[in-house]
């Protein structure tokens, strides 16, 4: 894998909560991980293994206590909040377990939100792109509806469209099918596979569901803050 194809690299990333206090807990112990462009990976592990913490770090919602996290080749640990926020908007798309649409806005506005945050009033091209994505997830007729009028599965598909509207280099999904029934979950997961192929972004899906994990070409397993499987094939470590 060449450097240009590398979307994400974690080098010895540790996370310690409440450092210097009696409650000090080290959640992640020196994580090394690479994600290449176009790679679809599942992050699995039991509850409390540090999956959410790792996802927060990768999503630049939190910063590591030690080690370095490179996003698109740029070191991020020393970035201030404003720079991390900008990088989130430019490079990362999020899909959360509880879809997290903004209920006050229409479906179309929800999809457009990352673009509106980036440059204010959306242009015709932005709206076209958002409508196109809504069509891709099969919700072209729902653009004007309030987010709350949709079913759980539909909302999750809107959330995926929203995460992809900026054409991010990295798509992060935290238990995206956690509260969906099996069939809906299959459909949603199918979208990840399709967009991964279509847009060529790196996708990291956190999941409990072994069947979904099995559908991914690569599985990273986290146990007690250590990566126990599939960590970094490029470097050859376990």
């Amino acid at each position, binding site marked *: 894998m060449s450097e240009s194809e590398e979307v994400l690299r974690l080098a010895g990333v540790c996370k310690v909560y409440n450092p210097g206090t009696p409650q000090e807990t080290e959640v992640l112990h020196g994580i090394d991980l690479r994600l290449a462009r176009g790679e679809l990976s599942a992050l699995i592990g039991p509850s409390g293994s540090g999956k959410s913490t790792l996802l927060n770090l990768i*999503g630049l919602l939190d910063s590591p206590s030690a080690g370095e996290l490179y996003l698109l080749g740029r070191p991020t640990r020393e970035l201030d909040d404003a720079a991390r*926020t900008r990088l989130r*908007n430019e490079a990362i798309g999020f899909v959360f377990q509880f879809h997290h649409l903004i209920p006050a806005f229409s479906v179309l506005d929800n999809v457009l939100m990352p673009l509106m*945050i*980036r440059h204010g009033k959306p242009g015709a091209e932005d709206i076209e792109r958002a409508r196109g994505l809504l069509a891709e997830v099969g919700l072209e007729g729902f653009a004007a509806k309030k987010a709350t009028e949709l079913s759980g599965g539909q909302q999750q598909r809107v959330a995926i469209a929203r995460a992809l509207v900026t054409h991010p280099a990295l798509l992060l999904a935290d238990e995206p099918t956690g509260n969906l029934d099996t069939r809906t979950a299959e459909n949603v997961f199918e979208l990840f596979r399709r967009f991964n192929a279509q847009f060529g972004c790196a996708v990291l899906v956190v999941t409990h569901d072994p069947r979904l994990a099995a559908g991914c070409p690569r599985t990273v397993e986290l146990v007690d803050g250590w990566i126990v499987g599939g960590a970094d094939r490029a470097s050859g470590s376990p």
Partner: protein
Amino acid sequence: MGGSLWLEWKIALRFLLDNYLQTLLILVGITVGCAVIVFITALVTGLQSNVIARTLGTQAHIRMLPPDEVNRVLPAPPGVLALDLENPRPQRLRSIGNWQAVRDVLDRQPEILAVSPMVSGPAMGRRGVARASVALLGIDPVRYLRVVPVADELIAGRFEIGAGHAVIGKKLAEDLGLELGDKLRLDAGEGREAVVDVAGIFELGVRELDARHVYLDLKQAQTLLDLPGAVTVIDTTVADIFAAEDLAVRLARLTGLKAESWMATNGELLNALRSQTMTTQMIRVFVGLSVAFGIASVLAVSVVQRTREIGILRAMGSPRGQILRVFLLQGGLLGLLGSGVGGGLAWLLVQAFNRFGARLFEILVEPTLIPGAMAVATLTGVLAAAVPARRAARYDPAVAIRYV
């Protein structure tokens, strides 16, 4: 990410509309608060200018009087301890020395609008067996009417005082049973008497003046009061009525006379006006504070309710400043909207007061009052939103997004 506030406006309006019941309730609160502030301000301003107009409509702003007579005590020779027993001197009716020159000096002062020299003293008015004590006012009518426009308050006859004519108050006319053209005998003591025709009757609405004032020609009054060629008072009006006291002090130094401003002679009134202004100010501040706290508490609740949405926006790359501005805008919008409606409501109240009220006086809403109140309310809204908005901006997105 965007210099314009387009998205901030969109989110702020959406949040307000989405929670319309909460928005409506706080808007009613702001509206009522602003209506109270605007109405009470207009009412008190109207009341005060009315009271001042009435008070000053019947008196000079500054009166120039001869200085009080004092005892002059010879200094004791050195080495002698002198114990003086002093009785205050009686203040006889005296002329202002060289009053023509003083009048001309006052005429040249740019702050003074009108100057009216006058001779004034006590007398007895008689008609048949009825008697009344009166105040003789010998005036130059052209100059005097510029200070106190008595001619506007005539209820009968004309303002004519030359050639044995007099203008008297309504109460005096009633007491002595006088009508237009009737004779009034004036007795100023020591055998100085005159009989004048009643040419006009005025009503200033001040009982004391209506019962006592008798306006005469300057010459005739001087003769009656045995002060030939003299004036005892110079009345003036000034441009800035609230600068009258300062000006009086200056004029006293300039002329060597005693100068009494309306502010000094109406200390009680001025005190009442000042306490009224202070009370109004306090009401405004406290109503304003409660409106501000209302906005702050509603937005504080809203920030908690919107925790997860704030987290989502932050995760999608919304900077802290954007979140801050969204909530500041909501505060400002609430203030602007509430004060706009409140100002309109207060304006309607004023119209109703003027039309259906007791009609004691007219309230005028100054053109700057409502826009001013709206500007202050908008600013108050933004300031009140500051604390909740800062809190929202400081949410940790990773925590906020999982908030249930």
